[in-house]
């Protein structure tokens, strides 16, 4: 009996040790990628973002219970990592650093859009407005609130939303037309949708 217990605890200790070594390896791997990304290496940057997205996705899914929301937050987190990578200090864990951004963005997102998600279910017409590709936004009977919300957007945001949703441009086409990067179009569109949601929520 005691020999059995001993071997059991012995194996548990070995497993723990192996897990620790594995975590250490991963940590060093991420640290190196982060350092290379800080130095401006595109491949390392891409790999770092892809790997950290893989790591964060299950965590976000677990806390949001919604694939779309999890992806939205993940995109925000990736943008956060992109904006703040230069502040990462290799003396500390990269996971701690990125999870701090992730946690903050998740709380921020939940706080901001808790009510909006309820609102979106109630107001089907808004969903239709965004979902239908052939929607004519400037129709006479179009909801005034949405028109007003669109008018309240900054010029560039409104332009991108209209190009994407009314003129059916692809993201690449918008980027080409406006002579900006695809990422810029995506982030501007993302912000515009957020602002629209916020405005619509206020109006409702």
């Amino acid at each position, binding site marked *: 009996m005691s020999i059995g217990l001993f071997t059991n605890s012995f194996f548990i200790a070995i497993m723990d040790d192996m897990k620790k070594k594995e975590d250490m390896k991963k940590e060093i791997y991420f640290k190196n990628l982060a350092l290379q990304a800080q130095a401006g290496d595109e491949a390392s940057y891409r790999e770092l973002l892809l790997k950290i997205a893989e790591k964060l996705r299950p965590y976000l899914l677990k806390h949001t219970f919604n694939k779309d929301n999890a992806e939205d937050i993940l995109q925000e987190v990736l943008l956060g990592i992109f904006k*703040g990578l230069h*502040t990462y200090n290799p003396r500390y864990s990269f996971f701690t650093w*990125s999870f701090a951004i992730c946690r903050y963005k998740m709380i921020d997102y939940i706080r901001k859009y808790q009510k909006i998600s309820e609102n979106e279910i109630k107001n089907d017409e808004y969903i239709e407005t965004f979902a239908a590709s052939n929607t004519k936004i400037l129709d006479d009977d179009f909801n005034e609130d949405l028109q007003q919300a669109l008018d309240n957007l900054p010029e560039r945001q409104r332009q991108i939303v209209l190009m994407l949703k009314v003129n059916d441009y692809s993201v690449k086409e918008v980027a080409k037309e406006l002579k900006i990067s695809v*990422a810029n179009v995506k982030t501007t569109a993302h912000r515009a949708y957020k602002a629209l949601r916020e405005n619509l929520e206020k109006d409702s």
Partner: protein
Amino acid sequence: MKQIETNFLIYDLAKQGMKKTRVSMFKFIFTTVCLSSIFIAFYLLNVELRFNLDYLWSYTSIITMFDMQLVGLSITAVLGSYLAYQLSMPGQDEKVSFKVLNLVFYMIWLSLIVSISIFAYQEYLVGPDVHFSLHCVERALIGISVPIVLLAYFVRKGYVLKVYQTLILVSLTAFSFANFINLFVCPELSMQHILFSHYAVILPIILVLAIFVKLLKK
């Protein structure tokens, strides 16, 4: 579909990634403290210092409110700069050392305000003597200008997640620098005056900055 969008975003961000270095802690604190101190020293050299300064300095056997303010403001100015640097890096505020120092920072401020308030209340019981002075407010605003710009500049070089926490910390730190001016220029000994003209002015400053940040975020 969204996952594909995320992958596109990753590829685009990686393309845009460029070398960008962070400001070192030494540079952050040293530049902020030195430039703010130089600015305040320069200001003090160009104005008339309080006539009763010698009288306050001569109190060596007991701790006066003047000494308390001097020590408290010096500590919060340096400590606040350090904490602002830490807050400009994600994850640093979760460290125990940060939490302890943050607590120390706010405790010093709180103890300063509470002790001044107690003395002011005692004075008030004897007779109200607020003597609110716009000159003191003006001096505080002049004093806060350089440190707050420096701190905001360096903090923005980092990546701030907790915007409002950083705003309060940066405002109080800059105000610590600014209050040195009133400490050496304003001759008033009334604690009611010190409380309302030297310290209460920070509240509208924080409020205005918070509204400004809120508008900026929109």
